């Protein structure tokens, strides 16, 4: 039977991620991205599931390092912009993040 269906299973639900006193952590961002890249079905054959989970962990490590790198690069740009504008104190705060 054809149905008009709003996903109600676990994967069909929205995922809400929150943080306190600042933005999302690197780990949270990686989790958000991973959920978009790779979903591993609970019904997958064990061997395939194991490989997929292993692959997911490999991707996690790569993503984490690049998220960290991206944030550092962004902070470096902001620090330079603030320093050039004469806000050395603010630049130092950003640099220490």
């Amino acid at each position, binding site marked *: 039977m*054809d149905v*008009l269906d*709003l*996903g109600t299973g676990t994967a069909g639900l*929205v995922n*809400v991620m929150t*943080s*306190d006193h600042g933005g*999302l952590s690197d780990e949270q961002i990686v989790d958000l991205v991973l959920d978009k890249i790779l979903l591993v079905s609970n019904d997958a054959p064990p061997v395939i599931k194991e490989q997929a989970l292993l692959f997911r962990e490999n991707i996690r490590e790569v993503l984490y390092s690049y998220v960290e790198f991206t944030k550092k690069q962004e902070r470096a740009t902001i620090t330079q912009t603030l320093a050039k504008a004469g806000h050395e104190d603010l630049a130092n705060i950003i640099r220490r993040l």
Partner: protein
Amino acid sequence: MAIAQAMCTAFKKELMLGTHNFATNGNAFKLALFAEGSGGKSSTTATLGATTTAFATTGEVASSGTYATGGGTLTKVAPSTSGTTALTDFADLSFTTATITAMGALIYNSTNSNKAVAVLDFTSNKTSTSGTFTIQFPTADASNAIIRIA
């Protein structure tokens, strides 16, 4: 339950009437956050579900950080098909420097009289304190997309 996940019944009818246009240059859709218990404005409690027909402020969380009353505008992803399933999707939505406690959300059509589309139940209170509140939509495929016609 005061907030129950559902595709609104009125929305299903309105699809047949051509009320909603999810094309990227179509209608504007928004997502508003709601509280159960005392988290909403003026301590009001939201009752949302399949029978919801339009956005109302009862139980909506208060403005905070980048969250303003009425919610955030969703960035649409053009409707597509996968096999015999039609689906549409939205880009993830974030509110920053926000202090929010929300139990669910309503997606609604802000172009057409704020008509309701779907109710999202977070199943538990989600809280950000002077932080980021992110709603991530599921993978846009035939099994998981947020809105599907199968």
